[in-house]
């Protein structure tokens, strides 16, 4: 679905966003719910989306942006189809999460917080995922845990995700 970002409200994506906003129109307390739904819809929260939400709920853009940048869940940049979350908790850090990140950087050509140009992967660093026994570990798409990672395994793992 292609989005016109001018805010004219004519395109399909904007109409769907407005539907999300309508549920909470004029209600500042609905901010996090609206942001969550908007991100699920659009994939990320660029300026035009935040502005439209701010207007719709009757809050300042500063309020919206402060919340968006506070929670790691929200993203200002387009997300890839697959999210790689590299654990940087204490155990993983000690066992070599830096090497994991370095390898990802070499294989994918992007740093943490970035998305590959083909929109396939977004690489993120997260705090302890509770899989310390598998350190160093990463989770792909929030469900597939890959543990005791060695750098040479990583290209093979990534090939499983189209």
């Amino acid at each position, binding site marked *: 679905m292609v989005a016109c*970002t001018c805010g004219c409200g004519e395109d399909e994506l904007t109409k769907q966003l407005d539907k999300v906003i309508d549920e909470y129109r004029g209600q500042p307390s609905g901010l996090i719910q609206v942001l969550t739904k908007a991100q699920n819809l659009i994939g990320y929260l660029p*300026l035009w989306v935040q502005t439209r939400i701010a207007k719709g709920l009757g809050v*300042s853009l500063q309020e919206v942006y402060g919340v968006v*940048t*506070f929670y790691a869940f929200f993203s200002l940049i387009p997300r890839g189809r697959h999210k790689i979350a590299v654990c940087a908790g204490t155990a993983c850090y000690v066992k070599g999460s830096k090497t994991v990140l370095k390898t990802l950087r070499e294989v994918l050509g992007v740093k943490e917080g970035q998305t590959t140009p083909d929109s396939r992967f977004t690489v993120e660093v997260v705090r302890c995922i509770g899989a310390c026994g598998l350190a160093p570990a990463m989770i792909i798409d929030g469900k597939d845990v890959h543990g005791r990672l060695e750098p040479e395994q990583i290209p093979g793992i990534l090939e499983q995700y189209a």
Partner: protein
Amino acid sequence: MINLTIDNRKVAVEEGSTILEAAKSVGINIPTLCYLKDINVIGACRICLVDVKGARTFIPSCVAPVSEGMVVNTHTPNLIKARKLVLELILSDHPMECLTCKRNGNCELQKLAEEFGLSEIRFEGAKTEYPIDDSSPALIRDPRKCILCRRCISVCTNIQSVQALTVENRGFNSLVAPAFNEKLANMECVQCGQCSLVCPTGAIVEQDDTDKVWAALADPKKHVVVQTAPATRVQIGETIGAEPGTIATGQMVAGLRSLGFDKVFDTDFSADLTILEEGNELLQRVTTGGVLPMITSCSPGWIKFIEHFYPDLLPHLSTCKSPQQMFGALAKTYYAQKEGIDPKDIYSVSIMPCTAKKYECQRPEMFSSGYQDVDVVLTTRELGRMFKQSGMSMTNLPEEEYDAPLGISTGAGELFGASGGVMEAALRTVYEVVTGKELEDINFTACRGITGVKEATVNVGDLPVSVAITNGLGNARKVLDKIRAGEAGYHFIEVMCCPGGCIGGGGSPIPTNLDVRLKRIDAVYTEDERMVLRKSHQNPAVQDLYAEFLEKPLGHKSHELLHTHYTERDHYPKEEC
């Protein structure tokens, strides 16, 4: 009442008080940094830690409520150590440019470092690096000096209801800025500068235009005139250590003349003129069924606020320019003609308790003389800086008088410095113009004071005139919402952008808190009472101005020079393709 012990002293305070308040009530001083009474009470900085018996950790006293039987120590050796550690951590990410900082000598962080006798910072590490934002004509943001206390956000959001700033990101990456770290000039920021008053460091300061003024004074071809706002004379003393509320009118005039200004004039003069124009505009609106309530238009932060947030109500604004801009337009027309000076050689400076005035003088509507009507605006703080640079001891100077004709004023003009003053000045004149009778009591005390929204009904002849007065934009918003809802039966509303009015403006000496504001307000009324003439329509220089130049209030020339129009603005960025 709750009974507790602080530093072995028995203290009784009301339930709900904080430990900090309880300590203060018996004269025990606990250092604070992020805390700002009634405005910012969030326990962020941890300087105010105290030792509470039985507690697992030290407790931030600014947010911790007292409880019965509590035993508190405020300065154990471990506490001093902890506070020093907090300070060192704050300073480990501070640029340490104190010698070249605008707040040198008047910085809360510097003062704490001095009080704690810090001799070294044990922590070395990454430093916050952000570009300085000097896009706004009024204010400069330097996030490197920010200690993330959030006072600016609190005052902008809770007092002014503008919310042009937020905290972005988290942890070490936290940044106080507009959304997307946009430049202040592109935001709905109204340039009121209340943030610069509450900033404990030099992270938000006024644009310093003193060099421009020194350059003009040094130029023999320039005829440099200066106007001083009503509030400045009750503020300027504080810049050199005088008590708040000190009136230094004559000394300030003498000081300005000594700095080299060719003529020292007074914004009180054009405040009187404003009353005649605005008073007549009100009468015209009442008698011809114009848009009511009419709202005052002297305060440029307020103007920008209504343009951004309530553009539908712009027809309610008086079309009168502010006294500063009326003065500017006349200095380069009426005064230039009268004195035979080419207006291009006149350099017009104004001294204001205000940062938004710096923005106002650059507005495209403010070139009615054919030139920029007011060339440069200095805040009271900057004038204090010029006096310091000159080495002059302003308070020891013999008092001098303002120059004629644009320095002649009445007590009514002086009232513009305090919340309710424009209204009181207007009522003094409107009453006498409409009824033809002399007022028995010219003191409209219902207009006075620092209450957020004041209301009164004054009988002007047969007409009961209903008025409202607000100060602080959060309070203005309440009245504007009433107008929108059709529930405001007022004829006339005075709005001043800053709490307490101009005496509490963003260009005022620091500190400006409630106590200081109240003392300056008292000084404004004292100054009014000292004046021989106290009603704007009795100002002989204004009478001459009409006779020689303007002809009559709301006349053709007035409309050309003294009145303006407003611009609808959005308070969200444009959504672009």
